[in-house]
C-alpha cells in the first residue's frame, strides 16, 4: 500500500510540472497583458510595473523564479486585486469552493449510489425505468439551466431560500448551489452504479450466495463491494468535474470561490491568479486520482499490484 502510494506520488510530479510549464508559457505567450487598462497607462508607468513584478526578465528566468516561489509556497502577488497575494485570495475563496465541492460530492455519491442500486436490484421494474429517465434527464440538463430554474422556483417563487450570495456560509445559502453542482454527477454515478451492479449481480458467486440462503442485505453488500470499483475509478474525473461546475455555479449564485476568481483573473489577464488556480486545481485533481487509486486498492486486492 505504501509502495503504491509512493509510486503514484512519483508519477504525479512530472504531470504537475507539465501542467505548470504548459499553462505558464501559454499564458505569457498570449497577446495582451495585465496592465492593459481601458485608459492606457503611460509607457514609463507600465515599464515600472513590469519591473516591479519581474515581468521584464526573459521568460525562462521568470519561469524558474515562479517555480522557486512555488517551492516555498509563494504563489505571487495578484495583479488585479491590489495589495493581495494569490495566497490571500485562495485563503478567502478555497473554504467557499471546498465546502461546496465536498457537500456536492457527498450528495452526488449518496444520491447516485442509492438510485443506481435501486435500479439494479429492481432491474426492468418501474423503479429501474424511473431512475433511467431521471438519470438521462440529469445528464442532458446542464447545470447552467438547473441553476436559474432553482433560483426562480425556490428563491423567487417560494421565497424559501436566498437566490444567491454566500452569507458567511449559512446553510440556506448553500442548498441551491450544492444541488446544482451535484445533480449532473449524481445522474452519471447512478447510471454507472446500475450498469456495474447489474453485471455483478448475474455472476456465479452472487448466485451461489443466494442459493445458500444468505439474507438479501448480505448479498447486496457483497455485490456492492465489487460494483463500487468503476464508481471509485471516476472519483478523479468527478473531482475535476465538480471544480469545473463550480465555475458556473459560483458565477450564477455570486459566490466568492476560486472558480470565480479564476474566470475574473483570466479576463483581467491576472497571470499569477490564473496560474495559481490552475496549479491548485491540478494538485486537487491529482490528489483525488491518488485517493481513488488507494480506495480501489483497498476494495480489490488485485489492484494493489498495478
Amino acid at each position, binding site marked *: 500500500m505504501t509502495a503504491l502510494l509512493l509510486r503514484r506520488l512519483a508519477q504525479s510530479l512530472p504531470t504537475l510540472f507539465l501542467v505548470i510549464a504548459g499553462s505558464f508559457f*501559454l499564458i505569457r505567450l498570449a497577446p495582451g497583458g495585465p496592465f492593459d487598462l481601458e485608459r492606457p497607462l503611460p509607457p514609463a508607468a507600465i515599464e515600472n510595473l513590469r519591473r516591479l513584478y519581474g515581468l521584464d526578465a526573459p521568460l525562462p528566468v521568470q519561469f524558474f523564479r515562479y517555480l522557486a516561489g512555488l517551492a516555498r509556497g509563494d504563489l505571487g502577488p495578484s495583479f488585479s486585486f491590489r495589495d493581495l497575494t494569490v495566497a490571500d485570495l485562495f485563503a478567502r475563496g478555497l473554504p467557499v469552493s471546498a465546502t461546496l465541492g465536498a457537500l456536492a460530492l457527498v450528495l452526488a455519491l449518496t444520491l447516485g449510489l442509492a438510485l443506481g442500486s435501486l435500479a439494479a436490484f429492481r432491474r426492468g421494474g418501474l423503479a429501474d425505468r424511473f431512475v433511467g429517465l431521471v438519470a438521462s434527464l440529469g445528464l442532458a*440538463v446542464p447545470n447552467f439551466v438547473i441553476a436559474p430554474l432553482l433560483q426562480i422556483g425556490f428563491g423567487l417563487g417560494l421565497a424559501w431560500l436566498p437566490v444567491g450570495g454566500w452569507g458567511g456560509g449559512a446553510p440556506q445559502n448553500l442548498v441551491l448551489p450544492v444541488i446544482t453542482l451535484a445533480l449532473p454527477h449524481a445522474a452519471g454515478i447512478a447510471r454507472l452504479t446500475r450498469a456495474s451492479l447489474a453485471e455483478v449481480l448475474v455472476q456465479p458467486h452472487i448466485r451461489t450466495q443466494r442459493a445458500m440462503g444468505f439474507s438479501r442485505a448480505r448479498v447486496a453488500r457483497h455485490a456492492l463491494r465489487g460494483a463500487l470499483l468503476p464508481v471509485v475509478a471516476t472519483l478523479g474525473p468527478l473531482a475535476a468535474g465538480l471544480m469545473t461546475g463550480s465555475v458556473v455555479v459560483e458565477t450564477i449564485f455570486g459566490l466568492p470561490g476560486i472558480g470565480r476568481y479564476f474566470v475574473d483573473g483570466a479576463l483581467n489577464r491576472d497571470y499569477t491568479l490564473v496560474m495559481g488556480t490552475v496549479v491548485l486545481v491540478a494538485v486537487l485533481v491529482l490528489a483525488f486520482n491518488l485517493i481513488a487509486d488507494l480506495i480501489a486498492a483497498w476494495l480489490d486486492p488485485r489492484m494493489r499490484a498495478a
Partner: protein
Amino acid sequence: MSASLTALARRRLARDRGAVAALIALLAITLACLIGPFLTGHAPERIYPDFVRTRPSLAAHPTPDEIRPALDRLAQRMRVTLAEMHREGGQVRLTLTASKPIDPRNLVLLPRSDLFGPATIVERSPDGQKLVVEAPVRRLHFLLGTDMLGRDLLTRCLVAGRVSLLIGLVATLVALSLGVAYGAVSGLIGGGLDALMMRVVDILYALPFVFFVIVLLVFFRAGLWLVLVAVAAVEWLDMARIVRTQTLSLKSRDFIRAAYALGSGTGAVLVRHAVPNTLGPIIAAATLLVPRVILLESFLSFLGLGVQEPATSWGVLIAEGARALEAAPWMLAAPAGFLVVTLMALNRLGDGLSDALDPRL
C-alpha cells in the same frame, strides 16, 4: 466486420424502439435547423421593436389588445389624435384628427411599425384636420415568443442549433481522427512506444483541461474555430484508449497476421484492417461524444467565452435566457428545450448503438 455483423447490428438497432425514436428526433431537429429558418418568416437578426418580449403563442400578432396601445403610440409620433378605430377583418379603419392640417406623409409610420401594411386615405376633411385611413393589419407568428430586442426566438433557436450541431459534429470528427490515429498506432506498434504513448494519455487525463480551455479562449480571443479546436483537444483521449484496446485485441487475430504475411506494410494494415474492424465501438463512442461536445460548447458560450455575437449557439441563447428569466421565462425554456432534447436523443442513440454493435450479445 463482415456484412452479416453490420446487418445484425442494424436489425438490433431497429428493434430498439427508444433508439429509433431518438434517431427520428435527431433527424427532425437537424432538418428543422437546416431549413426551418427559411420557413418561420423571420430573419434571425430582424428586430421587431413593437414585439419585445412577446409570449410564445400560436395566435397571430398583433393580437386585438396589442393594436390599440400600438396605435396610440403611433398617433403620438404622428402628432395626431386617434379619434376612432374600427377593426374589420384584416383591416383597421382609423379616424385621425389634429389641430393643424395632417401631413399624409406621416402615414408612412404605419407600415414601418411591423403591425400594419401601407395605409390608404379613405376620406379627408376640407381643412385637412381630419383624416380617415384604412390599413391592413399584418399577421406575424412568434411561436416561441420573442427576446428582449424583439427577435423571433424560434428562428434564433434554429439558427443557433446549426452552430451547436456543427460544433458537435466537427469537434467530434476532429477528436475522432486524432484519437483513432493515436490509438491505432499505439496499439498496433506496441512495445515501448505504446507504453510511452499511453503514459502521455494518462498524464493528459489527469489535467484540469477545461481550465486550460478557458485560459486559451480568454487569452486568444474566443471564436468558433478556437472553440472547435479546444473542445476537440479535450475529448480525443477516450477515443484513443478505446481504439488502442480494440487494436490490441485485433493484433493477434489471424487475418491481421495473414495481411502481414502477405507483405502489407504497417500503414496498409492500419488503414485496411485495423481501423475498419474497430469501427463498431468507435461509432458508439463517437455518438456519445457529440452530446458531450455540444454541452462543453454551451458551457463555454454560457460563460461568454464561446461563440460570439452575432453568431449564436444554444449556449449563448441559454445565457441570455437565464439573465431574462424573471421577465421572459420562455427565453430560457426554448433554447434549453432544444438542447436537452438533442442531448437526450444523442445519449439514447449512443447507448442503443453500443448495445447493437456489441458482438457479445
